[in-house]
């Protein structure tokens, strides 16, 4: 029987893990409240408007969560410069040839369901890096369009930074439309992300699922040279 010796690597530092879960909660809350803002529930109520504020509350939660989401994102960018090698900003830029080879490798495993070869990467695999880079762009887009719309009803300096997006995109309607479409990116991303984490844990057995809780990953020893 072949014996695979495994080494435990501390990959995700505490700030990365905290960021991940704060982000997960924020995205969930933002998608749910955002969807409700777009298509509010039908209420047949004969009460006066002054007795209710549920829709106002939904919007308030959306806005507050958006601020948390934004600063959490800013914190992650900072950690991209201060964190360990797995958290560094350059993980998310896939320019090296070896990274593209790995992307093809991962696609083979994910889509063609080829037998998993142990990957070079210990942190994010190259395909995940590319995907997260795209999600960062989506975060930025969602912050810009969201705060851009919010700017008109706020004196706070942060939304004002994004007020210029409204004239650029041709008015609030277009901004809202794009903001709403981008929400679906987050929803679909979340589905696939959660599934693939389960999948990789399932076929690789490197403990990727628990790594975002404890920070440890379990890597085959001969691959753990780098």
């Amino acid at each position, binding site marked *: *029987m072949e014996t695979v010796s495994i080494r435990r690597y501390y990959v995700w530092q505490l700030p990365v893990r905290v960021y991940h879960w704060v982000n997960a909660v924020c995205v969930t809350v933002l998608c749910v409240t955002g969807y409700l803002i*777009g*298509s*509010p*529930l*039908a*209420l*047949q*109520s*004969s*009460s006066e*408007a*002054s*007795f*209710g*504020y*549920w*829709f*106002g509350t*939904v*919007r308030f939660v959306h806005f507050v969560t958006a601020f948390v989401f934004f600063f959490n994102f800013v914190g992650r960018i900072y950690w991209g410069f201060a964190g360990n090698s797995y958290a560094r900003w350059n993980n998310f830029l896939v320019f090296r040839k070896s990274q593209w080879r790995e992307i093809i490798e991962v696609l083979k495993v994910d889509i063609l*369901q080829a037998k998993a070869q142990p990957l070079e990467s210990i942190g994010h695999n190259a395909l995940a890096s590319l995907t997260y880079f795209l999600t960062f762009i989506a975060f930025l887009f969602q912050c810009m369009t969201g705060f851009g719309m919010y700017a*008109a*009803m706020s004196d706070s300096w942060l939304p004002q930074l994004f*007020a*210029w997006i*409204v*004239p650029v995109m*041709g*008015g*609030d*309607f*277009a901004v*809202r*439309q794009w903001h*709403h*479409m981008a*929400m*679906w990116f987050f*929803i*679909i991303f979340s*589905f*696939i992300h959660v*599934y693939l984490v389960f*999948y990789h844990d*399932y*076929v690789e057995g490197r403990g990727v699922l628990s790594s975002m809780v404890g920070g440890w990953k379990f890597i085959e020893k001969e691959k753990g040279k780098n």
Partner: protein
Amino acid sequence: MEEKMLTVYEQMQSRGYSRRDFLRFCSWMGALIGVEATGLARVVHALETKPRVPVVWFHFQECTCCSESFIRSSHPIVADILLDKISLDYTETLQAAAGKQAEEALHATMKKYKGEYLMLCEGSVPTEADGVYCCIAGRTALDIVKEAAEGAKAIVAWGSCASNGCIQGAKPNPTGATPIHKIVTGKPIINVPGCPPIGEVMAGTIVHLLAFDRIPQLDGLGRPKAFYSRRVHDTCYRRPNYDAGLFVESFDDENAKRGYCLYKVGCRGPVTYNACGVMRWNNGVSYPIQSGHGCIGCSEANFWDNGPFYQHLASFPGFGIETTADKIGVAVGAATLAGMAAHAISTNIRKRHEIKKDQNEQDKKGGA
């Protein structure tokens, strides 16, 4: 044409208005453009002493609803003085002169008051086919705009046509209808969108120019902040229903009778910047939402393409007219879930092999 430029006050006097009428007019206008009580003296002083500003008023691709709205602004003197007198120099719809005389009047004003006159534009300018879709006196609107803008002190783009293209600019925009600010550069341009803009908003913009001799504070889209800084939604009297989550579901339901918020039947109030909720229309009688119909966002760019009007989300480009981003999102989401399910099944079949192999090996080891 008059030789000496009279002030607004002198003109009012010559038409039989009293000092009291004049002051009332000034306070009305002061309130409209949002000056404080202490600033009112400046308005009065300006209209008393400054000679009237020469004005040329052009009509291009439009329906004249802006002029109609303007002459119906609630204070009669506004129309009387500002339109009848102020823009006497040239305005196709209301001038007595026609043909050669009209052209002469226009060119005389443009020559005599070069750099001083106000240029008011109603309508968009077609740019396709060298602009032949709109010609006045044998010249294209494009030529006329460029020539008149050259010597203008400032330009006011009346209505959505002139400020964002409005219906003429809707897809596929066969005439290449273009708003003024995309044709003229290097001149102060005030956009006063709306189809039409509220008469008082138009009057207020003009009075601001007359009284302060400089353009009012503008937002990112060149609109006077005094009138366009807030959404229709933010000043809507139905807003409490929105916050309470009380919505009209269809125009004939109980909620519509109760006057709930029209958000779900496509009201564009939340994305439309205008003063309708505050100033209202026809001497402050009503505005669309008060009459039970959602705002269609007529003062916003591309409102005609952001349809259907009775749907909160626009239809998704490239799909059917009823298909919103939500429907597509749900379809993609369902496809993703289905794909994941299929993937999970095949993964399990594959993993079974591996587990079996491992089991066999362990059994062998145990047996040895």
